[in-house]
């Protein structure tokens, strides 16, 4: 019995750092977020008053609804670009052409160098007049744009940079996914006369469904939480055109000091992520049952 108690003490000591720090720095802030989203006023108000869901209504009317729309457009674009390019390049790397299987370093680089630094490069490339993109457009006799100060082009610029920064991760993950497809199954398909496209559509793609699901979840959560790209390139402007939900939380909370609205959007962001995680668990369970 004493032996057992000593094991318990050791076990609690081992899990304590993770459990205690998770409670203090994830669950308590989450409770504060939910609770304070129901109280009005800014950080400077001495006595916040209970406003129920008032902050949520205000948030949606005062730019928050628009920010959620921008988040949707950005995230969908981000998923399509990074997963499409990621899968395409992984197929090329997996094509068996001599030497290509080892070419992976270039795709890791944008992912791991500081985003602020690469964002500054892209800001420079998108600059009016002397920026690289406009020089290129001028050389091709195409209309130029002041990318970062016009609403539509600004969102395109932020999305282009966001995708450039992240797509390498999906290349790496899809390369791993393609490797997990057993070679003998592919060989059997080839013997049956299936070409590259049919091998992909009928063997590789269905066998990678679980991977695609996991990649989709990571990509979606990354897209939802895009921040640094926007902070450096546009600060949410012009006119809120690139203000996503997270940027809205930051702007209301740390620039405008309206914590009520910031917290309401924080809750929305939390629920969105939760919804994606629950969808993942549900889809994974269904995929596992189907096998």
């Amino acid at each position, binding site marked *: 019995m004493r032996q057992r108690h000593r094991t318990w003490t050791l*076990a609690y000591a081992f*899990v304590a*750092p993770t459990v205690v720090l*998770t409670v203090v720095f994830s669950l308590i802030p*989450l409770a504060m977020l939910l609770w304070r989203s129901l109280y009005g006023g800014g950080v400077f108000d001495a006595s916040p008053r209970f406003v129920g869901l008032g902050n949520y209504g205000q948030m949606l009317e005062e730019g928050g609804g628009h920010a959620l729309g921008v988040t949707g457009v950005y995230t969908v674009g981000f998923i399509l670009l990074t997963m499409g390019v990621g899968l395409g390049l992984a197929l090329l790397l997996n094509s068996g052409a001599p030497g290509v299987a080892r070419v992976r370093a270039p795709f890791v680089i944008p992912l791991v160098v*500081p985003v602020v630094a690469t964002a500054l490069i892209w800001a420079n490339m998108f600059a009016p*007049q*002397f920026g690289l993109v406009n020089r290129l457009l001028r050389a091709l006799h195409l209309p130029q744009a002041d990318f970062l100060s016009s609403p539509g082009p600004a969102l395109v610029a932020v999305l282009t940079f966001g995708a450039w920064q992240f797509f390498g991760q999906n290349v790496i993950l899809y390369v791993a996914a393609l490797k997990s497809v057993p070679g003998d199954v592919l060989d059997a398909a080839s013997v049956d006369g299936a070409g590259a496209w049919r091998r992909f559509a009928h063997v590789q793609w269905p066998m990678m469904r679980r*991977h695609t699901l996991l990649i989709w979840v990571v990509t979606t959560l990354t897209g939802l939480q895009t921040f640094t790209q926007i902070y450096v390139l546009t600060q949410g402007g012009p006119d809120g055109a690139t203000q996503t939900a997270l940027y809205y939380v*930051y702007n209301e909370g740390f620039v405008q000091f309206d914590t009520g609205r910031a917290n309401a959007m924080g809750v929305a962001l939390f629920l969105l992520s939760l919804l994606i995680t629950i969808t993942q668990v549900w889809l994974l369970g269904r995929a596992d049952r189907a096998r």
Partner: protein
Amino acid sequence: MPASLIARRSVVYLLLALAVVIVAFPLVWMAVSALKTDAEIINPAAPLLPAHPEWSNIGRALSQAPFGRWYLNTAIFGVAATAGQLASGLLAGYAFAMLDFPAKRLLFVVALSGLMVPFSAIIVPMSQLLGELHWLNTYQGLIVPNIASALGAFLFRQFFLGTPRELGEAARIDGASELRVFFNVYAPLARPVVAALAIILFLQNWNNFLFPLIVVNTTEMSVLSQGLSVFQSQFTTQYNLIMAASLITIVPVLVVAVAAQRHIIEGITLGALD
């Protein structure tokens, strides 16, 4: 080789070359822009390459801001947070996989709940909480909230579930304490997982921007990314200096990334697909 294969391979090489150019070009553009003179950089008609590379731009950028201090802060934060994440994850993962104790399931759910609460949703209450602790603008404020790693605990638990229980039993029969069983028998087995996670966690911490942004607002406590963004707001139109400053922050990471690419790729795959 049949002609169709040659044609197909040419397309493969061409597309891959295009992708590599798209990745590399911004970095080349940075280097080129960093070496332009003040006049060249804002002249739309100036040639793409500088006539005479202005190497002094790098020294000028370095002398305009405390990059040394920012490097030091980033290193302290990166090393301490990564070590904390690995240690706490290793210990918790081991306990959840190999030891039995009351309320284990509940505590495991609590440990994993960190995955459900993205930091970005709680930036406002987090900064208020750290303010109440008087931890804003301190190293502990930067480091401690980042130590719990739900992903680490989960991955180490998965790893230990796959190790044979007989190893521990044999050591216990020989009279080893539980602590010795962990340190001498099981912890060394986890070395490959530690290696794969260490580099990717370190790079994530090194590049973290949003967390330091809400915890630190003084120049002397800023991390490199933050400092760079302040540098940019002060030298808005001196693009050559801004690019020189970016160069200073990118090059060391670039060297590490190329040298450790195999571990990085392993770490990314481990974190997302297992």
